Every structure is written in C-alpha cells, then in structure tokens.
C-alpha cells in the first residue's frame, strides 16, 4: 500500500497523518514538539504508521472471521498491550541510562547507594506499569508519566545521604539522553510480544488468530510515497523546500476535507491566530493572521492560567460556570495578569473575570475573521483553543450576534487539521 504523509510541526505538538492514495486516513500520530523537529516528525510519523498497521491488522481479523464481540475485545486488549510493551521498552532503556548516570564521578562517594536506589525506583515503576490496573497510555505521554512517577518515588526514596534533588538530576540527564535516541517502538518490533501476552488471557486459539492477522498486516508493504510538511516549525525544518506547504493552505485543505461545506476556517493556536476563507474545493481565497501582538492567541490564556496557578485546560470549564460575565476590553497579554489581579481585588469572581477574558480573546478573532471577509457560510473552528468550552461558547454567541445563524463545525480531531491538509497535498504531488 502506498502511504502519503502530512506532518504539522506546531509550537507545542507535532502531528502526523498517513493517508492512502485516495486521501483516506490510515493513521495518525502526535508527540510533543522538541528542540529537534526532525525527531518529533519521525516519532509522530512512526505513531501514525503504527495506527495504520493496527488498521490493517483489524481488517485482516475481520476478513478472517467477520465482526464479533471476541474480536473486538481481542483487538482492544492487543492495542493496550502494545502500548504497554512500548512503555516498558522505554522504561527499561531509561533505567539503563539512569543507572549508568549514577556511575558518574560526581557520585563517587555514594555511587553504590545511588545505583541501588535508582534501580529500586525503576523496578517499582516497572512493577506498577505491568499492574493489570495500569491505564494504557500512548507513548506521547511517556515523558510526563515517567517524570511524575519517578518524582513521587524519589520523594519517598530520598534520605540524608541521597537527596531528592540529586535523584531528579540523574533522572533529568537520563530523560534528555533517551529523547535524543531513536528507540525501536515500531509495530514490527513489539507486536509479537504483545500477542504473546494477550494469548495468556485469551488462549492459544485467539493468539494464533491474532498472529495470522498480524502477519497479514505486515505482509502488505506500507511505503511512504510522499511527505509534505507544514506548521509553525517549518522555517527551521530539515525538509527540502518542495516538501513544505504553507500552514494556511494546509489548514484550508484539511478543514475542507473534514467538513466539505466549510467556507471559513478559524484556527487559534498558541502562537498565532488565522482566519482563512476557502472555496468549494478547499482552495484558499484569502487569509489573515494576527500581527506581532499576541493578543487573542492561546498564549493569552497561558498567561492567565499561570497567574491563577491553574492548568490551561482548567480555564474553560471554570469560565463556563460564570453567571455574570465581567466586561474586559483589553486582550494585551502583557497586562493580562495585572488586569486579573486588579479585578480580583475589586471583589469580582474568578469565573466571571475568566468569562470576560475568553470573550475578549474571541473578539480579537472576530476582527480577524471580519478582516479576511467575514463568515459567509459554514464555519470551522480548529486549533488548541477549539477544545476550550468557554472559548467555543463565546465564539458561538459572537458568530450568531454578528452573522446570524451559521453552522459551526468543531471536530474533536481538529488538532490534526493541518497535518491532514498536508497529507492531502502529499497525495497530489
């Protein structure tokens, strides 16, 4: 099978899509963008490839025995186990690196004790990961999970001789090292052991069936025919120019693919906001981006979250509980914190201020939309801020106030819009 890859390198996450020659999505992948964009592109593409392989495996399963409840369970269990295998592989390598770190000269006086303590912590992490109660997490979260578990265990494991800070220092070095490596996390590398493990709970027959399906999936070659790259990081991409497309075009094309009747796209990301008009073929007819000023971008919410010591994902739900929205006129990121403090001193409620701030932010996008030509028809909202309930509520209200009733599309997969557009460009090259 021929695969066509689209990669969207964002400021926070990198997304990849593999599509077939007809533009049908085979798989998707997402990872944190790191300082090394090439690495992030490779990892997200590998993730997409794995998803594509699973799709093929499932197809083989279905062809073998038709859809049934057992197959469904088997498949879910296999995916779960596969994630676990990937995690264990990463964890084991991380443990190796961390232990090696304890041999460094700095710890000479105590190195034996450090080595033992670090090994104990990783052994506990491995035990917990293998527990039947452990949730299956895709490997994009490996770093976050490892940090949180290690630090919890390190707090418990620290003593007068072995300080928490030193343990974390060892861990940090190891995690930096592992992120610089290309660990084998491929479908091919882990599927067989995953099947073995699943066989323990579902029996030999199931294992055999899964094995056949896996072989069938692997028998079909998945070659990448073309890759197109887009996104915030594209200025620094190690891709040749012919393989790079503007994110504006990719977003337009992606939104069109998701919602073919879309004529207007609004993308609010962390760093910038884009208002795009497309025609009936998804071809961009005009666009506007925010200027140098970051007012009205996701970054604005970031400042507010920091000021409130909240996670950025907590802002929307909190704002959504507001009953008396405060009127906020400025969305200057520089003054966001000061404004918030001022208003809290005045006795205004957090949720009411937040609701005002969400509306003020969306107001900026409305201006950009108007600048690009307004909302004439069906409208699609994408980007990280499209996941924020309060922002969506404010947007719906403002669209209705200014343009009347309009269909507003928000896909739960909107984060992939740019990558999808890029993949469709890859199909066309």
């Amino acid at each position: 099978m021929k695969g066509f890859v689209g990669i969207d390198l964002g400021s926070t996450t990198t997304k990849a899509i593999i599509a077939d020659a007809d533009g049908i999505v085979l798989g998707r992948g997402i990872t944190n963008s790191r300082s090394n964009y090439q690495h992030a592109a490779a990892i997200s593409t590998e993730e997409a490839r794995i998803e594509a392989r699973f799709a093929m495996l499932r197809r083989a399963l279905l062809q073998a025995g038709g859809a049934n409840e057992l197959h469904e369970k088997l498949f879910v269990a296999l995916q779960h186990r596969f994630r676990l295998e990937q995690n264990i592989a990463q964890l084991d390598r991380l443990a190796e690196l961390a232990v090696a770190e304890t041999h460094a000269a700095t710890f000479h006086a105590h190195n034996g004790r450090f080595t033992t303590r670090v090994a104990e912590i990783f052994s506990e992490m491995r035990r917990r990961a293998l527990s039947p109660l452990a949730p299956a997490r895709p490997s994009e979260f490996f770093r976050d999970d490892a940090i949180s578990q290690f630090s919890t265990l390190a707090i418990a494991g620290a003593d007068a001789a072995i300080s928490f800070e030193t343990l974390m220092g060892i861990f940090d070095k190891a995690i930096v090292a592992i992120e610089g490596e290309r660990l084998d996390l491929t479908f091919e590398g882990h599927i067989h052991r995953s099947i073995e493990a699943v066989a323990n709970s579902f029996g030999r027959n199931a294992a055999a069936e899964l094995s056949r399906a896996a072989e069938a999936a692997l028998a079909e070659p998945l070659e990448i025919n073309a890759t197109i790259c887009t996104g915030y990081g594209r200025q620094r991409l190690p891709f040749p120019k012919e393989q790079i497309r503007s994110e504006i075009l990719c977003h337009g094309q992606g939104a069109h693919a998701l919602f073919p009747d879309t004529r207007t796209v609004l993308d609010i990301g962390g760093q910038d906001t884009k208002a795009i008009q497309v025609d009936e073929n998804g071809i961009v007819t005009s666009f506007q981006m925010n200027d140098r000023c970051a007012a009205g971008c996701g970054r604005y919410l970031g400042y507010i979250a920091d000021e409130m010591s909240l996670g950025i994902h907590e802002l929307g739900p909190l704002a959504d509980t507001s009953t008396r929205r405060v009127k906020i006129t400025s969305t200057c990121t520089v003054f966001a914190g000061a404004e918030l403090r001022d208003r809290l001193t005045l006795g205004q409620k957090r949720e009411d201020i937040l609701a005002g701030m969400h509306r003020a932010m969306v107001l900026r996008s409305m201006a950009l939309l108007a600048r690009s030509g307004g909302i004439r028809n069906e409208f699609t909202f994408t980007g990280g801020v499209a996941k924020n309930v309060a922002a969506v509520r404010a947007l719906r209200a403002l669209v209705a106030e200014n343009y009347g009733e309009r269909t507003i599309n928000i896909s739960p997969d909107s984060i992939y819009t740019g990558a999808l557009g890029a993949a469709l460009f890859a199909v066309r090259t």
Partner: protein
Amino acid sequence: MNKGVRKEPSMVKQKELIANHFTRLSKARALGKKVVYTFVPGNLTELLAAFDVLPVLPEINALQSGMRKLSARYIAEAERAGHSEDVCTYVKCDIGMGMTGNVGPTGEPLPEPDLLLLSYTGCFVFMKWFELLRERYKCPVAMLHVPYQGEGVVTPEMTAYVVEQLKTEVIPKLEAVTGRRYDEARLRAALALSAKAEDDFVWVLDSAKNRPSPIDAYFGGVYYIGPIFTAFRGTAEGADYYATLRREVEERLAAGESPLTPEGQMGREKYRLVVEGPPNWTSFREFWKMFYDEGAVVVASTYTKVGGLYDQGFRHNPERPLETLAEYCMGCYTNLNLPSRTALIEKYVRDFHADGFLFNSVKSCNSFSAGQLLMLREIEKRTGVPGGFIESDLVDPRYFSEANIKNRIESYLQMIEQKRRGTTEFREQSAESPAVSRRERNGEPDGDGGRTPPIPPKHGGFREPT
C-alpha cells in the same frame, strides 16, 4: 538564479551621485554653502538649486541609518530621551542620530540647517518633526502648507494658494538665508532638465508591463528613485543617470532578461505583484530575498510615487515654474486621498497584469497605513485579484519579524499558485472531497450528511475498510 553578480553602470553612477552628495554636505560649511532641511514628498529641489543651497532630507538619513543597522541604537537613544515607543521611527531615528553627533554616511557630521523648509505633503508627522528640529537648531522655518487632495482633485484655488505661499513665505526666506535674489531663469533651466529625466524614469517604470519584467519596481525601484526624489532632480547628472538607466533596461528588455537582484539575475518570473507601502529598511536585503527566491517580481509600487506621480502624466513644466512646483507637491502619492490611492492600485493591477497585490503596512506611518485594510478589500472586490497583507516597520528592527513575514509571503504566493492551478488540478482530483466521500463513492449510506470526519477516533473503532 544566476549567481553572477552584475554591477551595471547605472548602479555605479547612482551610488556615486548619492555618495558625492553626502560628501559635499559634509564640506558645506567649508565651501560656504547654505543648507536647507526638507522632506522627500513635495520637495522643491529645483528651487533650492536655483538658490544654490544644499538639501538634507531627514527621511533619507533615517533610511540610510536603517540600512547601515544603526537605527536601533538611534531609536533607543530617542526613546530614552522621552520619545514614545508609539510614534514614527523615522523621527526617532533622526532625533537619536542628532543626539549622537549627527554623523552621516561619510563618517562626518551633517551640517546644521540654515533653514527648515517644512513643505508638509500628506504627512502630519512632518510638522512635528521639524518643530522638534526647530527646538534643537533654533533656526527659521518656512512653512509650506500643501493642501490635501481631499476630493481627489487639485483645484486652481489650491494651486494659487501654494504659489502664493512660495512667493510670500518660501522664496523670501530662501532669499534671506542665502542673500541671493530669486533667479527664475535658473529655475526654468532646472525644471527642463527635470522633465527630461522624468521621461526616462517613466519609460523605465513602464517597462515592467512586459513579461518577464526587466525591472523590479519596488526593491529595484527604490534605487531608481534615489536621484530624482532627492538632490538630483533638475541637474545634468540626474538626467544623465536616467538616460543610462533607460539604455540598460532597454537592453535587458531586448534580451528578455528578468530583474537584477543582489544575488544576480532573478530566476523565472512566477508571480507579478503590485506593492503598496514603504519597504522595511533594516532587513531590506532579507525582505527582497523573500520575493526573488520565490520568483516574485514587483511590477508596480506606490512607494516609488511618494516623490511624484510621473507615470500618471505629471511633468515639471519650465513654462509655469511656480505653478508646476505647486502641482508637483500636491500630486505626490502621499497627498492622494484613499479613493484615489485605491483607484491607482487597481489601475496598476490591471495595467501591469499583476497576479496579486501586497500591502506592506508599516507601524510608523499612519499616513500610509490607516485605512489600508479597507483599500485592500476594495481592490480585491474590484479586480478579483487576491490581496496580501504583511506588517513591519520602516527602521525599527523590533518590528521586523522575519519568520512571520516570510510565512505570510510564502502563504500568499502559494495561495496565488493554488488558485491559479486550482481550477484545473484541484478540481480534477477533488471532484469529490477525497478524504470524506469514499463511502459515498461506494454507494454506502451516508448517515451524517457527508460530514463524517475522515479521521477515526484515536483508539479502536476504525472506520470500515474497503
């Protein structure tokens, strides 16, 4: 891109002219010459030459400082002295340069003014600028109020008003400063030379109507306007420069050559653009490169009209010396109202067969920038050609975000390309929306109005394969 970097005689000549001007300015005092500071739009170069005074153009100093990467320091200096970060950076660059010795490109200080000729044409900031210089130099100011073309026309009353001011304000002050009498014969001779240079200059600008265009009318254009917008209009050297330039462009045109860039001859002409607004000077080369690397050539620009709309027919006329100066001042691009500016860009888009038009909106210059977004929309509506919008500044490097601007220019050019090919390639390939309509193609029921996202949920539940 042809990497052979070519220097043509006109370029050498242009460089020499400008360098010589700064040299003679640095020696003005020794030579006993009087010095008048004035502005490019609506400059009265021929009249100044008739009094044998040397002009200093502070905007040119500021843009030169920008190109020599000195402006950031000068602006910081002015802001430290209390100038707002919100206002024109030409002014602050000039003020900062003055505060640090007023050293010109020759490395020697520019002479102080004997007179500030405030012929303020289309820019209110000019007035504040010279008020600031008046405080510093404590020298006389000749105010020349150039009425704005608010209704899109120059009336005989407006011309009479400017001529009267020339007679009662500007000329008497020049006479007082120089101790010379106004010499109309000398003015007429200069105006005749101006008209000659203007003919050749217009021919060069018009050459961009050809495909490929032999010139870049914005990035190359700013070099072409140098002599005629500054001290060399109405001089033999100026006329000679434009004759040389014209010959070269004639040759390039005959050879079917595309414009010259700092990296040699430009590659294939892929996009023809009209540009509105001044360029950014601090990253001028980088800015230009964003265009020629993509095969984009600017075929017409409004910035090259701030010192006169010669291409629309204006010529200095030695028969009516003061009237012609008055009409010249009022006819500069900066003195046109928004409907006239809009109509001019629309005309350029049509006359030069442009694929697009791009606004470089500069933070410093409200005279240019206020209203540009409406102009853009209006021109799109009238021509059906897509407009692009980028934001930067004249000489403040803090407002030139290279990644952002490159992103916008590339997106814009790719949009033009996609639109151009869209009707053929895209429609063929996406007769149906590719990612979505597989099921419809297979005649399967379409339960959700064809709006099923092509992306399956993340875990399990993949869409039925075929």
